[in-house]
């Protein structure tokens, strides 16, 4: 064996050995081949070794050399011991025995940890930064997508409003017709006449108010959703006469609607808008005229319709001429009944139909509104296959509901039972995973915000085990991020609370009808 310090005096060599021994806080344990402790020297307490009861410490050291040979030298650097200190461990075979030498590595471990900690944290931060940049890009794309979606929703809203407007009109038209019939048959019953007139007055008000509010529901920037069709102007004039004559006569006003058709070409207009323009103008005229007359002169000539609605009413003061078409502004008619929308709606519709609108008015003498509208272009008829698809039949389909809120669970159970589902309810995500794999329901409906394992984690676990059944997640978080996270975890649909029942039913139908992909056992690895 080569001496450690061959060229120095033994006194120096001893000194250096002593110094080294102290500095590295060495602990030397000597064992026989059966791990029985023969000798212990050094700072045992520092390494958590109890010299008086060394069995536990010996077991700890045996664990550190588990699987390694004690017949060969072993070197294990930076081993953190049970008491938190760090040591370089050496096993040194020595004939029929061996030594275990522990050298202090705590200071060096702390230095390395500080350096590594900074490096690792920087690397993690850098990864997070890259991820954040990627997410920002995604958000931008998402915003663009949302913008397009909003535009689409806006168009849908307009279509819905147009449909609603039409749906309102149909029963009200019937009401007006039957009111007229009832009025004729009321004979000389004055109180019945009075009652019917009151109904007509209010029905007329309801009609114009509903139409105006629905129209106002469109945003100013919306592209006009015109539906030009051939219009029977004679019938329109008759309707207007039937609608307003009784109201005018009730007030003792002269009333007339004159229609003059000087063009062989069939008039084509968006009939709903045309009707609404004339109804609004006549409604205002009758409402704000106490004496005299209200008249509508309508002429169809040279592919242009002109209508003049005049009255001998209260008129509009010059100060209000500029604001008369502003929504919710009643101009000179302040204090009178009405929402103040009629003229603003007329203005908007005339603009949409590329027409003109002018008026003359004098306070106490009356007003005259002149509208001109060019002939519209007829649109193609809607296709037959635009019809709504019939509902799917859900009788006998199975669904597993996972929700830890018993009230919500009962509500879902009742709703789904009404739809024909066979419903099974569990209260936590882990049970949902087990039951879904075992029972293979047609649909799994799971709450995202479950206590313990989250709904998303359960969905992820199912999908990562090859589960192919339909999964609908339900969450109280109505954000796009939450929706994306749920879909990324493997959900097919994402619904938010409170439930929109129509949407809920629709999604359940979709999910139940989609069934299992791949068939068989779905390839689930339990």
């Amino acid at each position, binding site marked *: 064996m080569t001496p450690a310090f061959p060229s120095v005096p033994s006194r120096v060599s001893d000194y250096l050995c002593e110094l080294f021994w102290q500095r590295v806080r060495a602990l030397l344990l000597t064992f026989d081949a059966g791990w029985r402790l023969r000798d212990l020297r050094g700072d045992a307490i520092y390494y958590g070794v109890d010299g008086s009861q060394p069995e536990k410490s010996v077991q700890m050291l045996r*664990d*550190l*050399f*588990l*699987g*390694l040979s004690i017949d060969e030298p072993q*070197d*294990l*650097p*930076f*081993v*953190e*011991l*049970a008491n938190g200190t*760090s040591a370089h461990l050496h096993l040194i075979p020595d004939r029929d025995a061996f030594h275990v030498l522990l050298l202090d*590595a705590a200071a060096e*471990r702390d230095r*390395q*940890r500080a350096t*590594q*900690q900074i490096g*690792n*944290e920087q*690397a*993690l931060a850098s*990864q997070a930064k890259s991820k954040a940049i990627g997410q920002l890009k995604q958000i931008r794309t998402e915003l663009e997508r949302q913008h397009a979606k909003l535009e689409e929703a806006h168009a849908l809203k307009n279509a819905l409003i147009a449909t609603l407007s039409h749906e309102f009109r149909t029963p009200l038209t019937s009401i007006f017709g039957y009111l007229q019939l009832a009025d004729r048959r009321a004979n000389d019953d004055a109180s019945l006449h009075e009652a019917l007139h009151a109904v007509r007055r209010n029905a007329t008000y309801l009609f114009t108010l509903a139409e105006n509010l629905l129209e106002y529901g469109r945003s100013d920037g919306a592209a006009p959703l015109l539906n030009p069709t051939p219009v029977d102007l004679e019938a329109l004039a008759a309707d207007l006469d039937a609608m307003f004559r009784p109201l005018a006569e009730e007030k003792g006003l002269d009333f007339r609607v004159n229609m003059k058709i000087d063009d062989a070409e069939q008039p084509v207009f968006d009939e709903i808008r045309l009707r609404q323009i004339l109804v609004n103008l006549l409604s205002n005229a009758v409402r704000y005229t106490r004496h005299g007359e209200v008249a509508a002169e309508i002429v169809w000539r040279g592919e242009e319709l002109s209508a003049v609605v005049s009255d001998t009413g209260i008129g509009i003061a010059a100060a209000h001429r500029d604001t008369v078409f502003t929504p919710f502004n009643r101009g000179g008619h302040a204090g009178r009944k009405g929402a103040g929308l009629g003229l603003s709606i007329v203005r908007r519709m005339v603009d949409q139909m590329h027409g003109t609108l002018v008026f003359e008015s004098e306070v106490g003498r009356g007003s005259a509104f002149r509208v001109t509208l060019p002939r519209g272009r007829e649109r193609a008829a809607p296709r037959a296959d635009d019809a709504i698809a019939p509902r799917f039949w859900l009788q006998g389909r199975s669904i597993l509901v996972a929700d830890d809120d018993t009230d919500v669970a009962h509500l879902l159970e009742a709703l789904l039972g009404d739809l024909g589902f066979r419903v099974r309810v569990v209260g936590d995500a882990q049970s949902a995973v087990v039951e879904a794999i075992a029972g293979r329901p047609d649909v799994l409906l799971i709450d995202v915000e479950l206590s*313990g*394992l*989250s709904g*998303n*984690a359960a969905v*992820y*676990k199912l*999908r*990562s*085990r*090859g589960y192919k059944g339909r999964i609908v997640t339900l969450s109280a978080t109505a954000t796009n991020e*939450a929706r994306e*996270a*749920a879909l*990324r*975890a*493997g959900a097919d649909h994402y619904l938010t609370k409170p439930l929109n029942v129509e949407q809920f039913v629709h999604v359940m139908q979709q999910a139940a009808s989609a069934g299992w992909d791949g068939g068989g056992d779905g390839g689930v*690895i339990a």
Partner: protein
Amino acid sequence: MTAHAHKLCMLGDFGVGKTSLVARFVHSTFSEKYLTTVGVKVDSKEVALPGRATMKLVVWDIAGRSQLDSLNMTYLRGASALLLVADGTRERSLHAALNLLMQSRTLLPDAVVALAVNKLDLVEQWEVAPAALEELRRTLPVHETSARSGAGVEAAFADIATRLAE
């Protein structure tokens, strides 16, 4: 009677939660603070297996690396099981875990192996797709775990212990 001991090494990239998984498994604790491991930290726990003798798992929590170096190889010697750990929010860490598995196979061809994809409590932020784990399950036992909540942790270690006992 002394339980039969097996050396189990935790392998994975830094920051995936190896130390946290061991803390959860051995001490039922969790710390939010990230403290990098230097060298190796050794802990042990006795595991009761149904119908079998109690087993002692000596868990070597090895400092995180994406590649095995000579020091890691030193720590791996004598191991009979490997628990690879990846962070579900960092797909790159899954690749690192699989890379470490391939490298360790030369030294430990017969070791029992399982993969823990950690941070299940952050599943909303996971980059690892369910389909990726579905594919991996064909060749490797995979456990989704959360050291924070404890989800899947016992199951992952029990899976290894069971297979070591077979």
